[in-house]
């Protein structure tokens, strides 16, 4: 229901559920059965507010059967049918927004996008989401490189370069998050998490204070060149300090492990 609800609270979810239930009842192919289901669930005129016995009687009357027969033989089938429809709907609407959209190889050109603004906007949202996730994976790649160099060749300085690149990528991700928030608000649409949570999905990163994020976002991390970004950042007031803190905080866990391993082996 989360995907359908206007808001995260339970009232919105109940409203969404009620609307869906009515939709599923209206979709029952056999008209009399549909009327009976509407009576049973109290969504048709005259049954709203009635107790279960009265609603059952109305449902039985719609099918011209005795209430006992309805209760014992028809009602369980009806409930199973609606439960199945609800499960199918849930399957269809399940949000996978906290995981990257699943991609499969396309072996033929896609069907043309309808000339429909709803389609344009739905696709634009998907486009923004893909940009967000591409930034998440770009950061993840640098964090992995950082770990690998720190483990493989800690004296080479490559791990510091990787940490610099990670800082550049985390800046890009913050820019993408800000852009998403301006367009769609403080939570991922239909995913119900703040977009900032995506940073943690790339891997562990040192905490950045709000002024650090502000500085990162304003030093052009979306520019294509890492070196230009670093030069601009370190030339700005507080930029060198931010960069040094980031590199040292990011590498501390690796250095502890490396040092620990060395002392064990020696």
């Amino acid at each position: 229901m989360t995907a359908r609800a206007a808001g995260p609270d339970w009232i919105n979810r109940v409203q969404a559920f009620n609307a869906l239930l009515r939709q599923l009842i209206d979709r029952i192919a056999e008209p009399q059965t549909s009327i009976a289901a509407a009576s049973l669930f109290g969504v048709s005129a005259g049954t709203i507010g009635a107790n279960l016995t009265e609603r059952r009687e109305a449902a039985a009357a719609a099918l011209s059967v005795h209430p006992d027969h309805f209760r014992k033989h028809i009602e369980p089938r009806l409930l199973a049918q609606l439960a199945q429809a609800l499960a199918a709907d849930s399957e269809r609407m399940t949000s996978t927004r906290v995981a990257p959209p699943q991609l499969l190889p396309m072996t033929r050109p896609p069907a043309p996008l309808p000339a429909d603004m709803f389609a344009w906007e739905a696709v634009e949202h998907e486009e923004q989401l893909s940009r967000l996730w591409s930034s998440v994976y770009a950061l993840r790649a640098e964090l992995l490189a950082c770990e690998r160099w720190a483990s493989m060749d800690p004296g080479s300085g490559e791990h510091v370069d990787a940490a610099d690149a990670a800082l550049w990528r985390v800046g890009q991700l913050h820019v993408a998050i800000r852009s998403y928030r301006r367009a769609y608000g403080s939570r991922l649409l239909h995913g119900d998490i703040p977009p900032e949570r995506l940073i943690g999905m790339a891997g562990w990163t040192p905490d950045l204070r709000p002024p650090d994020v502000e500085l990162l976002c304003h030093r052009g991390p979306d520019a294509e060149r890492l070196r230009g970004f670093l030069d601009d950042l370190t030339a700005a007031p507080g930029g060198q300090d931010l960069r040094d803190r980031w590199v040292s905080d990011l590498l501390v866990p690796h250095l502890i492990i490396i040092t620990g391993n060395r002392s064990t082996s020696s």
Partner: protein
Amino acid sequence: MTINDIHTGPARRYVITGGPSAGKESVIEAIVKAGMSCSAEEAAREIYRQHRARLGRHLQRDDRRDYSREVLRAFIDEFKAHTQGVRFYNRGIPDGYGWDRFFGLEPYAELEEANQLYRYDAILVLDPLDTFEDEHDVVWAQDREIRRVHELIVQGYYDAGYSPIFIPADAPEERLDFICANLRLPRPSREE
């Protein structure tokens, strides 16, 4: 209802709606071809283009209310312009509920008020045409998003107090026959 009533009888307003890929344009084309009054163009589409051109970028959350109000005004004008006979509408005022919900926005006062004042006689929801060639296609995020829009639009009509009539996916002419049978309108002639 007679042929005359369709054109000169009391005003009757029917909404054709559904998400993208529901085959709305084809059904509307069939309605126009059958000689019935219908809004062929979707007013909101042009407003959307103009709004973006004016802003010079995509719509952001803060822009959406203005945009929604503009679309609502167009729907109200279209509603009021019709005074007699049967007319089909390419989407209706309550589409705004579903659309706002897609963007996580609560319904706003003007929309609620318009929904109370301007009531359509029937809502016809076109079930999505099954364009997926195999079951894996449905996992494409774009298709999921579009399906979500459809579901939210339907829910919006329930929220607005309507009980929509669902039109199964079929050829446009068959769908029009189904619509006419449900609305007790004369079946359109297929003669060229």
